[in-house]
């Protein structure tokens, strides 16, 4: 198959690369761009470890063709840290045990980040619902909820302080 020359906007940077028309975004990120934070955990789009954001919407990179993502803003877990420091959700997952082996963590980061961007104060049920798109085999999810609550509190505190300043 002849390769296509495509241009992808990943984490705010533009990458030009040649890829086969049927290449998955997941393989493109991992192999061509070296962004290995996005993980492969299954064969059938059931685990959520490869979740990335397209224009802020969480999507599975294993269900997307790289060539079809040319006009969208792609954010991977590597693009979450803000100004050289951990985003609130990244810090909270570390502090509260939301991450053990860490293999599913990038996917959860992208899912939770998108949830909180869209709904800064989700209910318990909304959090559970959002998380059900991703599988974790270590934590039993309980400590993730604590981490998410802590991240929400940290974000709210940050906003209050920003308003005051």
């Amino acid at each position, binding site marked *: 198959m002849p390769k296509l020359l495509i241009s992808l906007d990943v984490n705010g940077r533009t990458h030009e690369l040649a890829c086969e028309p049927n290449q998955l975004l997941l393989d493109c990120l*991992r192999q061509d761009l070296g*962004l*290995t*934070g*996005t*993980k*492969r*955990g*299954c*064969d*059938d789009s*059931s*685990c959520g*470890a490869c979740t990335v954001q397209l224009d802020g919407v969480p999507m599975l990179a294993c269900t997307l063709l790289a060539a079809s993502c040319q006009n969208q803003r792609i954010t*991977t*877990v*590597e693009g*979450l*840290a803000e100004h050289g420091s*951990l985003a609130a*959700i*990244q*810090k909270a*997952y*570390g*502090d*509260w*045990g939301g*991450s*053990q*082996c*860490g*293999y*599913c*963590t*990038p996917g959860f*980061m992208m899912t939770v980040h998108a949830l909180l961007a869209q709904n800064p104060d989700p209910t318990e049920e909304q959090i*559970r*619902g959002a*998380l*059900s798109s*991703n*599988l*974790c*085999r*270590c*934590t*039993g*999810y*309980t*400590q*993730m909820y604590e981490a998410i609550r802590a991240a929400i509190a940290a974000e709210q505190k940050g906003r209050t302080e920003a308003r005051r300043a």
Partner: protein
Amino acid sequence: MSGFSIIGKPIAMVDAAGKTTGLGKYTDDLTLPGMLIGKILHSPYPHARIQRIDATRALRSKGVVAVVVGADAPNKYGILPVGHDETALAVEKVRYIGDNVACVVAESEALAERALELIDVEYEPLPAYFDPEESMKAVSDLIHAEKPHNLEKDYHHVFGDPGKGFAEADCIVEGRYLANEVTHAAMEPHSTLASFELDPHTGNMGRLTVWSSTQVPYYLQHKLSIVLEMPMSQIRVIKPLVGGGFGGKSEVIPLEIIAAVAARKARAPVKITYTREEVFWAHRGRPRTIVDLKTAVKKDGAITAVAAKVIQDGGAYCSYGVVTILYSGALLGALYDIPNIRYDGYRVLTNKPACGAMRGHGTVNVRFAFESQLDELAVKIGMDAAAIRRRNLLKSPCMTVNGLRVQSYGLPECIAKVVERSRWAERKSKLPRGRGMGIGCSHYVSGAANSIIRSDMPHSTVNIKVDRDGGVVVYTGASDIGQGSDTMVAQIAAETLGCSLARVKVVAADTDLTPVDIGSYSSRVTFMNGNATLRAAESVRAQIAAAVGHRMNCAPGDVVFGDDRVWKRGASPDSTTGAAQAVIPEVTVSGHVEGQILRGSVQQKRKEEGPRDRMSFEEAVVAAIDFHGTLTGVGSYAPPVEARGGKHKGAGVGPSPAYSYSAQVADVSVDEETGEVTVHKIWAAHDCGRALNPVSVEGQVIGSVWMGLGQALQEEMVWKDGLLMNPSLLEYRSPSSTESPEIEAIIVESIDPEGPFGAKEASEGSLAACIPAIANAIYDAVGVRLRESPFTPERVLEALRAKKKDARKYRLTRSFDPVNPVTFREHGGALRFKGKGPARHSHDAANGRGSQNGNPRGEV
């Protein structure tokens, strides 16, 4: 007890940022220049002789560099020295659907996959065995010629006088329990990257480096040495981040050996990563198990005797099987005081993927049976389920009837805590119909007292290097697989040296750099590697104390360490920030000018100042290096002889320097229309000795309970003539966030006398209690006692209908009765694969005479 600055504090794992930012590297994230990709050809037959393999067409295919077959590396290996029955790729025979036949090495995954189809293999199908009880009758077409009756190993143990115990009992209950097969399904599929370097002296391929998703780098190095016929010193195994193990990476998995053999043949670095389906075939999970259990009690609830016959469907290779079947018997003791035990264990070979070690290794399915039966006995003698457990407590410290030494025993407090938190007394058996509560207990080893490779070597060794910059580098062989062992090691080193956590850097699990540690399995790391770290750090501290004491004109014992400082006992530590400072992971830079440069003139000035009574950590380190010439500490750990068990055959498995304890209460609802079980909440109390890092301990306890919940309600490997019907995360139903209840972890600290700071294991012991707690809660809710796990809606409904004598039984298969199960079922019953499959063995249940576990009439 407090007084610790870092131990006992909730601390983020030292590698947490690498995980949340995606920058941490797992094996599949690694690449090397010129790296090729390997893909494995798997057997489509459960049992067949390989007549011919022809790779000519594959080798001509685009981008293919090499094709590896069994003959390229025929040496046998296996994780246990008594179980060397595997080869890298099949030699002569394949023994399960998914067995490894050949490996294509190509420039890309797609090219390798394409070439797989071009390998021509001729098979001669052989009769296959799928049911363990049928397999035990085999006289011909054995799975391994040297194992008569396909029996991998059997053990027959008698402790005390079971006959007398049963005779003096007031109540005896007997029953068969079936636990279906489950697998680890760690989120990271197995991956291995192998690369040889050219030797400058010989000009040929020399040293091998292997990066692998393993829990046991040292064992991998050992097995690679056997298969490749290379000295261990020429093989370097590096464990990058590992995305979960649960036992599935605790032995050498075929791809790890195949990648190295392929790299040798292709003369280039080779990476192999399993697809999720291949992970299921590689398996090594918890075997499906038949437990025939008989328990006897007095009227007051005292257990007088237990007899258990356990049959494990071990799959086609030994794997950890001999250990699994021994654990099943040995850990009948050490939870309760049982004076008389009879145990008959059979580990059976079948033509299915090999089973191995999985979280709670060997104990889980037997514990499900035992705790369910104890509940039944309590009902029979009219005793509360928590009370009967309290009646049978051990009197620690003690030696159990089967020779297990118990020194710390937090079970009474665990039971008390869950009973209190769940409001057991006021709620048990008093909830509306359809809702119920159940209790279960379990325990587990904190490391095996005897290592797999028989020798007197220490189980863990740790080296610590401290340099003039005040940095502490800990070299440990402990394999962090997500449980947080690197963090544990850093905490122990920092606590012992009184320095901040940020000073400590952990270099782990690299056989060239780190001393031998036998790996992350049997919950041994905190106890054993923690103790080795403690000893190494104490050695460093003693050296610093000697030098500093010399400076301060005091005995080394009067030098106090803490808050990143050292001071003379009685002097003010000169700390304005207090103990909290050490917890904050920031490097303090106090005294760095003197510490790093320390020219002669400064030294002179110091001498003129006369003795001081306090120093920064850096200054103390520099003083120690100047005094001794070097500052390194070593420590090792080997379990004490008293804890290594009795003299009987098989006594080596089960003994541990310490045991963890767990009690759980489950609160469930059962929908009598659909058979669906909903778990509302689980209270889980776990005795971990001391919680070195409470966040981690709670995480491990919750994770174990949750994994038990999966096995209790929905996880099950479904088989059909040796073919796994659900080899994907979509169909192997690991609970999602919406199916996972609240789990309240309650930490109980019994402070073990030999554990590091009193710590024991926390990662496995809680799993086993969850399944019987849920089974007992289902009984409390709707009055049916399920003896076959998992408790799927289908099984619950069948049991409810059988109880009501409802004519509309499901009857998916003839033997299907989850209340009184007889034998394992095959997928689909009526849809039995006929005619096209391999010829069946004459003893196979599916042959002729209807079938024991199929349904020839097609009832649904």
